[in-house]
């Protein structure tokens, strides 16, 4: 009993930090409809700034608390600046481009932190006067834990007052319901949004700084927390602050229980192995029972839609066909004009083109946004890896396992996902991807865990770099042609009808959900093919093949290329992969440069690269 109480208190304390960060994210989403991927980065920034500022002020009572507060305010200012400099310019662009800009910020903050503070972990300062332990119900509890447990409800109460008792709060709530109308009533929306970003970012920074006495500041904090924060926000209901608090409690308690009872096994699986998966299982369960989270509301349809209608898909015209032919010829003769390194890079580009095209198929035609498409790429890679490791399968067979495992995973996960829509759907895809990743990471007997599976080499007949290039390239081109075929087949039209108006499509007898499910499975299958080819290219498989960064890369490729152009993923994946490879070889700070390029591209070409060239061509026609 005492043990349980102890665990309960530990869980409550760790929930506080999670709540602070999640509340900031949920506030930003509620008003601006932006899913801020950089929220974890702001949390990390808060922690680093906290260490520096508290060090600067000295560790006294005033120095410590002043340092915490100032760290939060500086992070708030960073968030506000980003909103003013970047997001403000692209509120008219499709919502996903705002997401892309926040990806860019993640990369920039990562390298900025590395550059300013170095690669070493920084130990957090102790809180003066709150060290040691206090007796609670006969238990010795760290005093700082008690402070944390009390701090979260205080912040919750302060936020409630802010949103219900001040004019600013009322305007914010009005703006979450109908922004355009708020402007028409004489309120400058720009400053409202900037203010919201300031508040949300400051809360993330505070969350990072306030956990310092219990931990440290390190460079992996950003991605480590972002998945948990997404889960909390979605489980609580996006936009609901109280929901975020309840969800943070729930998630933290379950995790603490699983960690402290690590050795308890259930059906052969140890509790610690469930720790990462548990959070996402909770989320999947909540979303299936309550599609808008614990306290969320059904997404308001109607006035929030600010984007222009999706452009039409047209079969390639003559000049595009000629360009495609030229690219094909170039690909065919590449091994004669380039060295093995370039040929190997080209193989990778082709594989990612297929991967991006499978995501574009799902997003562009199906209107299904996936934040976790790497799951299927990774399943494909593991399909190959497992077949080789456990059955010693030859490549020809192992490569069949790739699409099978990926399509099977997509069939299963997709069944749940297509029951939701919009951001919730995207978040559920993320949750499933994290589940797949956790299994690969923690089921060591099967997958080799973090080390992955090595020794996956193609047989002699495709053993050379050039032979494998032709082999993989042929499969990728066939895959692309098949995807293009689907887009212009009746199935493609049906999908697009469901994307543009689910209600109307439903009314004319289209089973939108079933078609989306099929599209989800197909997209997963093609991603799996890409993943399988990738495994043989690299000779190994590791959990990274289904981790969040790869899902993000895929999104960046598709969005850079333009979601609504079939040539988009080709341009996007090629540009992104080449850029990344090139930058990696040039500088240690490739992330920052890539991030800046992404942000710049989003601001300059909100229709994507392919969209931008199409726009130029249209303009050319208009003048002619």
């Amino acid at each position: 009993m005492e043990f349980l109480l102890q665990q309960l208190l530990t869980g409550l304390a760790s929930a506080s930090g999670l709540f602070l960060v999640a509340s900031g994210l949920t506030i930003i989403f509620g008003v601006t409809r932006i899913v801020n991927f950089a929220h974890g980065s702001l949390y990390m920034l808060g922690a680093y700034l906290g260490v520096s500022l508290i060090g600067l002020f000295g560790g006294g009572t005033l120095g410590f608390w002043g340092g915490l507060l100032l760290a939060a305010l500086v992070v708030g200012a960073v968030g506000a600046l980003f909103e003013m400099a970047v997001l403000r310019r692209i509120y008219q662009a499709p919502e996903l481009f705002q997401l892309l800009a926040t990806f860019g910020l993640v990369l920039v903050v990562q390298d900025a932190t590395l550059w300013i503070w170095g690669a070493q972990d920084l130990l957090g300062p102790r809180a003066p006067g709150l060290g040691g332990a206090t007796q609670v119900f006969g238990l010795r509890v760290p005093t700082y834990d008690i402070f944390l447990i009390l701090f979260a409800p205080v912040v919750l109460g302060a936020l409630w007052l802010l949103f219900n008792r001040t004019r600013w709060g009322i305007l914010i709530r009005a703006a979450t319901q109908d922004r355009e109308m708020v402007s028409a009533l004489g309120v400058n929306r720009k400053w409202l949004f900037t203010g919201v970003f300031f508040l949300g970012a400051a809360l993330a920074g505070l969350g990072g700084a306030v956990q310092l006495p219990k931990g440290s500041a390190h460079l992996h904090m950003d991605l480590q927390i972002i998945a948990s924060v997404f889960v909390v926000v979605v489980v609580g209901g996006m936009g609901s602050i109280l929901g975020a608090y309840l969800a943070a409690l729930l998630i933290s308690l379950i995790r603490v229980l699983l960690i402290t009872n690590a050795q308890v096994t259930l059906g052969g699986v140890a509790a610690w192995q469930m720790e990462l998966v548990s959070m996402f299982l909770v989320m999947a369960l909540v979303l299936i029972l309550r599609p808008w989270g614990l306290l969320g509301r059904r997404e308001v349809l109607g006035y929030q839609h600010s984007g222009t209608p999706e452009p039409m898909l047209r079969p390639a015209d003559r000049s595009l066909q000629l360009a495609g032919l030229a690219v094909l010829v170039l690909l065919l003769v590449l091994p004669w004009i380039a060295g093995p390194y370039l040929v190997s890079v080209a193989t990778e580009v082709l594989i990612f083109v297929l991967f991006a095209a499978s995501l574009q198929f799902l997003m562009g035609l199906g209107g299904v946004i996936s934040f976790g498409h790497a799951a299927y790429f990774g399943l494909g890679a593991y399909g190959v890896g497992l077949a080789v490791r456990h059955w010693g399968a030859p490549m020809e067979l192992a490569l069949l396992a790739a699409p099978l495992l990926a399509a099977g995973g997509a069939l299963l996960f997709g069944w749940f996902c297509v029951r939701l829509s919009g951001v919730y759907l995207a978040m559920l895809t993320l949750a499933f991807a994290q589940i797949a990743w956790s299994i690969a990471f923690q089921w060591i007997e099967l997958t080799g865990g973090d080390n992955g599976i090595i020794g996956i080499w193609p047989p002699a007949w495709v053993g050379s770099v050039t032979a494998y290039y032709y082999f993989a390239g042929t499969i990728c081109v066939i895959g692309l042609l098949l995807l293009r075929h689907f887009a212009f087949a009746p199935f493609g039209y049906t999908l697009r009808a469901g994307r543009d108006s689910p209600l109307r499509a439903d009314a004319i007898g289209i089973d939108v959900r079933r078609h989306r499910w099929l599209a989800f499975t197909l997209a997963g299958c093609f991603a799996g093919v890409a993943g399988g080819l990738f495994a043989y290219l690299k000779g190994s498989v590791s959990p990274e093949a289904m981790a969040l960064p790869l899902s993000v890369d895929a999104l960046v490729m598709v969005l850079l290329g333009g979601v609504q152009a079939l040539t988009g993923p080709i341009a996007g994946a090629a540009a992104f992969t080449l850029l990344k490879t090139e930058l990696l070889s040039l500088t240690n700070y490739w992330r920052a440069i890539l991030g800046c390029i992404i942000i710049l591209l989003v601001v300059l070409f909100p229709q994507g690269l392919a969209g931008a060239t199409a726009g130029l061509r249209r303009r050319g026609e208009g003048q002619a």
Partner: protein
Amino acid sequence: MSPVLQVENLEAFYGRAQVLFGLSFAVARGEVVALIGRNGAGKSTTLKAIMGMLAGTRGRVHFAGQEVTGWPSHRIARLGLGYVPEERRIFPELTVLENLEVGRQPPRDGAPQWTPQRLFELFPNLGEMRDRAGGRMSGGEQQMLTIARTLMGNPQAILLDEPSEGLAPVIVEQMGRTIAALKDEGLSVLLSEQNLQFAGALADRACVIESGQLRFEGSMAALRADRAVRAAYLGL
């Protein structure tokens, strides 16, 4: 008398489709002008374009002695032009008092001053449900609330988009009395309507539009007398 609102060669677009083709008209101080036309004639678009809510609008709009062409809508609202949308668009999760708070602007010279207290005298129903969420009110009550919310900005002129649409006859009558009362306060009104009878009882002048073009401009009496215009553009 110089007009409080003057529109010249207004053109508006949805995407690449042009909806308004060079509209010009004016509203004098204290005047009620009815913008009359069938469904899809461009009435709502005209009001939104004046209010700066549509991107890519061309032409010139003068309000209260300033050219407001291309201004963002909040600046136009702060100059004293109120907008009451057709779909009501109250904030469903805010209470009546909170809805009013969103509309509140500082007092303005030369325009009637409003407080929640004064508005509750004009709309007694609202006074009885100050803390009710906007989404839990009837259509008529919501229509009252959206007008009251706009008045909280102490405007000198308001754009009223089909205030009688979808309301019970009793409420329509009440709405008519309210608009007449606002006119007595000295408010200028641009009223978009399909209901000729409703508009006729309130308006000094009428502008008939069809397919985004002005087809008739004149007094209400002249419109009543002009059978040809009514038959051609209003189907009456």
